[in-house]
Each structure stands twice: as C-alpha cells, then as structure tokens.
C-alpha cells in the first residue's frame, strides 16, 4: 500500500465492497503504469501517481464510485486508452482512476443509423461494426485505437469531417452519471419510450455542457452510454488490409477514387478546397501537411530521415489537397465528380501529383485513414510529440493562423525537430462551412527538452489569451484563467460546477478552479466596498 493512512484504507475498503477485490488496485506497479504517457507535461510530472485504479462493470458501479467519492471527498477521473492522460492523470492525493475496460459493448441501429457505445469501445471496433452494416463513423488522426466515446465528447476531428462534421455534433442520446452519482439522460433518451435517436434538448441542449473545442474532461461527470451518428458507407463490409505495421496497406474498390492535388501556394490551396466544398463533391477532403505525410509514410526512421534530407515531400506535396470520391449514389456519381474535379483543378491552378507520388500516398497514407490509421506514428522521430497549435474557424482563418504559428515555432527549433514542416493538417467541416487545423511537433523526450516544450506551450497560451484566440491552448487552460479575456464565460461555469459537484471530486482541479473564482469575486467585492464613500454619520435631531 503506497500511502496507508486511514483515509486511504477506508477508500480502498469501500471501493472493494462496491467492485470486488479483483477490480480494485492500489499497488505501486499499477499506479506507475497509470501515470506514464508520451507527453512532455507527463514526463515532467512523473512523480504524481494515482492511489487507486478501479474497473467498474456498468453504470451502477460508476454511480456508486461517484457517490463514494462525494461522501469521502476523494478525486477521480476516467481514462480510456490514455491518449490524453495529462488531462486525466492524478493531480491530488487519494486520486482514483476509473478504467472502463469492462464497459466495451456496442449496439447498432442499422435502419436509423446510430450506434450506442460504452466508454471502452474503440474507433476500430465501432467502425468495423458499422461497416458490416453499410455504415460509417469516422477515424480521428490520433488512431483507431482511441476510445470512440471519449473522442466524440472531447474533440472528434474525424478524417471524414468534410462530410460527417465535427464529431461532437454527432452525439445523440447520452447517459451521464453526475458527480453526485445521479443519472442524467439527454436528448430523446431523456423522455420515456423514445430511445437514443436524437441529441438536442429537450429545450436548451445540455449536451453542450460537455462541448467546446475540447470538452470539460469529465469535470461535470462521466458518460456511461452514448449514441453516435453513423453515416452511409458505400464500400465493402470488410475492409481488406495487407501486411502488418509499419508496412500495412489497404485497398478500396475501384469505384472509390483518390486524387492528390498540389497547389503552388497556400492561398491557392485554400481556394481549391473552397471550390471543392462549393461543388459538394467527395466523401473525404483534407489538406495534408508534409509532416503528416512523412510520419505516416515512412516504414523506418532511416527512410524518414532519408526523405527528409532529400526534401522529397516538401518538393512534391507542400500544399497538397487529398480528396476521395465516394460512390454514395452509384458508380456514375464518381465518374461525374471526377469530371467536376478536373474543372476545379484547372480553374484553381492545381496539379495532380505524379504517379510515383500517388502510389506512395494511396496505399500507405490515404486508405488507412478510412478504416484505421497509424495513430501516433509521429512519435517515432523523437519518441514523443506536441500539438503546438489547434484551431477552428473558417478555412481562410485556419490557413492564416497556422502560417502565423509556424513563424512562432521557428524560435523553438531546437528543441523541436526541423522535420519538413510548415504546412498543417487542415480539415474542412460540413462542405467547408468551417474548418480546423492542427500543427504538431516532434521532439525528444528528455527532461530539459520537455521543459522547453512546456515553455513554448505557455508562451503560445499567453499569445492566444492576449490576442483573443479561441483555440486548443485556451481550451486546455482552466476556464478561470482565460475566462476574463472571453466575456467572463467562466463565471456561470463556476456556479454550474459547484452545483453539480459540490465536493469538487470529478477530475478535481482541472477545467475550472471554483475556489479561486469565488476568492477573486470576494476580493473584488471588498475592494468595491472599500472604494465607496463611508456612510454619513447620523445627524442629531
């Protein structure tokens, strides 16, 4: 027992009573395993470990854990694949990590195109079940091993978002255990006999308490079941793949057509994407940064470095738009859309890549994005990575923002590796009604390097706060830190957090610091009172 004080023993005993001995751990080896991840911040915070790891079986178990935590005031968080561990790892004493490994069921309503998933259903699992039924969900860049529920709630930038949207918008009915242990259901699931099919309402849409550019990281409770939209998939029920990683390839039938179009400038690249969005063609469209291509393509670090040295991708694909035409209606749709695409390429000054480049991109990079991808391949050059910028607005705004960010990053090379960058992954949403981009850096996982990386992150956070940028950095910072620059959006949130989580146990300390908000408000009130003129002394009659 790592700690062994009376409170730890009490919590351990009670967790064991709820879940059974085999589903509660507090040994050093397990605690260490749940404190490690690839990110710089985790490298620097290595000493911080949870005190308990528990494996609930169902919603009732999670309710019981939440009630226990509220009664005995111990903090907890839920962690699926652990991809975003720094946002869910232990931050205080008596921390309990809820690992939902035993909650991995998926049910598909084929006719009405949705799936109900539990927290430990991976994207790979969900996509496989969907494709068997002629349906499609989407795969995020982080990889198919990521948890589908967490990804939909937290962020949800699927490669197919050009057609399927920002995935937090694809959430339907939701079962949500509040920090008090009570259950809230949302959307059509909230009312009797309706089921999971609809997400909004009733009335104001409380799903949105979980939705920003990223979510509140479980600070307002734990979602135990989630219905997500599925979309029509006109492809094979079983997605053929060959070889194993890192040489894994996959093939789509001939009636799916990839086109890779290179543009002379970023502006022309943006114009090309807008034109494609206006024509409403294609099933997937993205702008691939050269970094992304390099990371996804190389089968070894040697090959990666060789192509980097040659400047291969920079020369061939600096402003690359990748589009895959889907036969949603029929094969004739693809023939029609190829004709339209040819006109757009000509009008916007693009050029299809050579056959040699096409053959490199299609099997190793493109097709894998539909069923799977090489998630976190970009950790290979330096053993870790850092998302230095992530941003969403119009496509034009996205291109402008990433350009500015690359200039900023120049000041941090090293420690960031100079690995063929300067073009970001850009993802349009909903036929280009909006779009997002992410800029990622590879770096070595050494402590001094990680310190520099965190410095860069804090510098860029200050930049975003000062400029008034709603972005990844400003979303990851506690709301009370950035809120004063954004119409004080944190003030109502503090009231909501306090009302829903009166003992501040759900992922305590992240998202918003209610005590700090209240203290600031109290000080402001006292200051205002002090500045008021003293009341006049009563006059004698």
């Amino acid at each position, binding site marked *: 027992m790592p700690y062994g004080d009376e409170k730890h023993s009490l919590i351990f005993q009670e967790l064991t009573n709820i879940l059974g001995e085999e589903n509660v751990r507090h040994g050093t080896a397990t605690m260490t395993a749940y404190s490690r991840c690839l990110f710089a911040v985790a490298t620097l915070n290595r000493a911080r470990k949870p005190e308990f790891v528990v494996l609930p079986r169902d919603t009732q178990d999670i309710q019981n854990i939440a009630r226990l935590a509220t009664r005995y005031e111990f903090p907890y968080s839920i962690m699926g694949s652990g991809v975003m561990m720094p946002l869910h790892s232990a931050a205080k004493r008596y921390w309990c990590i809820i690992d939902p490994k035993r909650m991995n069921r998926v049910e598909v309503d084929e006719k009405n195109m949705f799936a109900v998933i539990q927290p430990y259903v991976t994207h790979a699992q969900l996509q496989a079940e969907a494709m068997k039924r002629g349906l499609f969900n989407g795969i995020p860049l982080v990889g198919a091993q990521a948890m589908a529920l967490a990804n939909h709630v937290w962020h949800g930038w699927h490669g197919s978002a050009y057609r399927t*949207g920002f995935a937090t918008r694809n959430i339907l009915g939701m079962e949500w255990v509040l920090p008090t242990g009570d259950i809230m259901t949302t959307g059509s699931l909230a009312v009797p006999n309706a089921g999971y099919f609809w997400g909004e309402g009733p009335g104001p*849409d*409380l799903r949105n308490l979980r939705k920003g550019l990223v979510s509140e990281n479980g600070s307002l409770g734990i979602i135990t079941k989630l219905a997500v939209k599925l979309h029509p998939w006109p492809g094979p029920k079983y997605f053929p793949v060959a070889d194993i990683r890192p040489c894994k390839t996959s093939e789509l039938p001939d009636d799916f057509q990839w086109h890779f179009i290179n543009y002379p400038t970023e502006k022309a690249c943006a114009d090309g994407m807008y034109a494609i969005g206006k024509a409403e063609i294609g099933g997937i469209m993205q702008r691939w940064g050269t970094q992304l291509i390099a990371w996804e393509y190389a089968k070894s670090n040697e090959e990666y470095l060789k192509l980097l040295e040659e400047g291969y991708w920079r020369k061939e694909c600096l402003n690359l738009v990748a589009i895959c035409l889907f036969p949603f209606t029929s094969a004739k749709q693809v023939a029609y859309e190829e004709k339209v695409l040819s006109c757009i390429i000509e009008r916007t000054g693009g050029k299809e890549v050579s056959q040699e480049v096409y053959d490199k991109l299609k099997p190793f990079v493109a097709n894998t994005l539909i069923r799977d991808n090489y998630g976190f391949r970009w950790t290979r050059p330096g053993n870790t990575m850092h998302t230095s910028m992530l941003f969403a607005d*119009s496509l034009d705004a996205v291109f402008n923002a990433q350009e500015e960010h690359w200039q900023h990053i120049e000041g941090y090379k090293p420690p960031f590796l100079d690995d063929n960058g300067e073009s970001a992954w850009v993802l349009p949403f909903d036929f280009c009604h909006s779009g997002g981009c992410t800029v990622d850096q590879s770096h070595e996982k050494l402590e001094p390097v990680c310190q520099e990386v965190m410095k860069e992150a804090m510098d860029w956070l200050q930049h975003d706060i000062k400029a*008034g940028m709603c972005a990844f950095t400003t979303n990851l910072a506690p*709301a009370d830190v950035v809120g004063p620059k954004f119409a004080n959006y944190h003030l109502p*949130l503090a009231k909501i957090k306090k009302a829903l989580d009166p003992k501040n146990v759900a992922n305590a300390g992240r*998202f918003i610091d209610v005590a700090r908000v209240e203290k600031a408000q109290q000080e402001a009130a006292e200051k205002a009172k002090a500045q008021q003129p003293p009341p006049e002394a009563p006059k004698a009659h």
Partner: protein
Amino acid sequence: MALKDDLAAILGSDYVSDDPEILAKYAADWSLVQPRQPDVVARPGNTEEVQAVIKNASDRGIPVTPRSSGVGYYGGGIPSQGGIIVDLGRMNKILQIDPRNKKVKIEAGATWAQVQAEAARSGMMVCSPLLPHPAKSVVTSALEREPILIPKTEYSDQVLTQELVLASGELFWTGTALGKAMKDQCFPDAFVPGARLWNGAQGTLGITTWANIKAEFLPVKDRTFFIAFDRPDDMVEALYRIERRMLGYECLALNRTNLAAILGSGGEKAKDKLSPWTIILIVSALDYFPDEKIAYEEESLAEIAKSLKFKTTHTLAGITGLDAKLPAVLRKPWADEPYWKHRQAGASTDIFFHTTLDRAAEFEEAINKIAVAGGFDTADVGGYLQPLDRGRAGFLQFGLRYHPEDNAEVSRAREFHRQASETVARMGGFFTTPYGGWADLVYSHTAGYTSTLKIVKDAYDPKHILNPGKLCF
C-alpha cells in the same frame, strides 16, 4: 421613475408603448396558449439599447420576453408572467452575406422575406423550414430548431455563432464569436458550454441580437419528383432508401390535406385525386454539368422505384407546371394570404415532435383516432413528415384545422391538442422544443435533465427575469 418612462429615456418615446390596443396584440399569437398581456412593449434599435433595457428590468426584477417575429404559432413569445416585451423587429439588418464561407450574418428581427431575397442576389439561400411565414424571423426559426427541408447532414445545425444579451445586461457570444481575434466567427464550439445550449431555450437564457447562420448555394437546375403512397409504411421505406443514397435536395412527405393547401386553389379542387401521402423529392445540381448530375440521381431513384415498386411522376392530379414551379416555391416563404395552414378553416393547432421514420405510421393512427373521437374528420388533419439528417430521424407534424370564430370548435381543438400531446409523449414522441403545456409534460418525466437545467438557468439568470414561466422555470 415609472417603467415606461425609464424605457422611454433609453429608447425614445416612439419606441415604448403601454397603449392597451398595442399590448393586446402582444398578448396572444396563433396558438391556443393562454393569452397574457405585457405591461409595456419596448422596441430597441440596437444591441446597446437591448442591454440597457435588460439592465433596467434586472434592477427592477421585471420579466422580459423577447419577440423577434411578426407572427408566432406556438406561444413562445407570449409573456406568461407579464412585464416587458422586447420586440426586436427593428433590429432586422442583414449584416453580411458571405458566399465563400457559406453563411449570413443577420440581426434577430430579419425576416424570411428579407433574407431569402437578399441571399438570392448572391446566388444563395438559407435552408428554410416548410413555407415559413414571410414575417417570421430567420434567427428564431433556427433557434427553435424548425426542421429544414433539405436533409443533408452538412446543412444541418444551422446556427454557427451568435451574440446574446444575458440577464445581467452583459454581452456574450457563442462559438468563435467569443474571440476578438477570430476573423470569420463561424465555428460553433469554442469553449464549454457549446453554442447549442442557447437553442430551443425560448429566450430564457439570453436574448439573441445577431447570428451567423449557414447558407447554401442555390441550385442552377432542378427536377421535381412526386411519389404517391396509400400506406405511410411504404412511404417510409422509400424515404430510407432515398436518403441512404443521398439523393436530392428538398425531400419531404405531405398528406393529402397539407399538399392540397400548399398547391393552392388547384390543389383544393384536386384534393380527392391526391393520394393519402406524397413524397416530394427535388433533385438538383449546382454549377458543373447539371444535366449529368440530375441524370445519375434520376437513374438511381429509378432503381429504388423498381425495387420497391413505386412510380415517380413530375406532376400531381393533372396540375400543370408543378415540376418547374415547386423548387422556387419551397425555397421562399409563403407569399399569399391567408397563411397556407389557415386556408381550410382559418386556423390550425399543431402537434410536432421528433421520432424515427419507422414509427410515423403508428403516430398517424393515434392522432387520427383522437381527431375522430373529438368530432373532427381525418381530412381536417394536415400531416407532414420531414426526414432529418439523411433519414436518421424524422420530424412529424400534425395540424388540426379549426374555425377560430366557432367557440365550441375552438374548445374541441384545444382538447384535441391536449389529448394528442399526452398520447404522443406517452408513445415516445420527442418534443425537442417544448412549448406551452408541453414543458410540464416533458420535464415532469425527466428528473435529471430538469434539475440540471434549473442549475444552468440559475447560473445565467439568477433573478429569473428572462421569459419566466417557460420551460421548467
């Protein structure tokens, strides 16, 4: 100072009224919701004036009910606890038409008649619900989640960002509009809470002053198909197949009563020749090779028709020119008087909710039974089924026609509405925007949701001045 004088000092006396005749106009709408007269009507001309009015109301603890449209059908703008009506009708500017980012930025009082005319000049449209009243606010339609006729996923979730005046009188923005450095402000989820928290709220969490709304390019060519069905179940299977193949733009189904009303005098005359239900599918194309696009979609539709054994036509009941006329009709607000729902008897009371398409028939049967038991004919009930999000769900609306001058019939219509609402709720129809009596019906069955909603209301409107008496608070 009296309330009216305070507001006149803010807005000017021309824009504040407590004239009983004017107050009476704001006391009711076309719904059967209990009328309630406001104490005063304020008509601000800009955001600053809205802020000043709200601050004044907040100081006094007086209820404020926003009203953006010249018409109302569901009671959302009736001031159920009196107080101030904030009529946003003067705030009707179209601030921007942005074809590159496919959006319009409009003030809350901008109407369908204004916005569609202005957007069309740039070759665009805002996807509209079924024939809205020309005086209805576009922003209100979107905030009320009125379903659009084009069930493309990419066109859904129309509100991108918006500006709000909160109960404190302070300004707030949703999505990327919250960041002063955000150039185009068209991404809805910037910080928690996401933008949709304020949708479906009937002004209870804030008053919207402007919004960025999705807009789409007008097709350059259309082909209209009508598909007649005797049984709703057969129709629903066709809708599933059509949407799964992503065919067409506008796609909706109307029963005989509604279709006749929309087709005008020709439709009324030909009513008996219409089928119980008809799908209207408009296959459209944008700039590039429009004939080829329509041809491959038509071919695909023919395959579905052959498989399900239905026929497609380009006209109905011998009415000529419908193929060419209908797309333009459906992309504009209703232009004639009376409003189409009121043609038959003078008024209509609507029950509308979300469900899955495969449950449409059972709901229709239940509604018809209640209508007949209440002394109405099934021909008095207009039916409308709107596939949503590529057929993932459906919006189902039944409108009972009644004569508003006949008190006995009004009373029976009211009873029909009550019984039908209860039946739909019991069967699992989902009132996503619970108006009037539906609020109690819905929230009394949703303990977790209701208690959290009250927490959210307390956080944004601690004095409960914004449209009190609506929803669950």
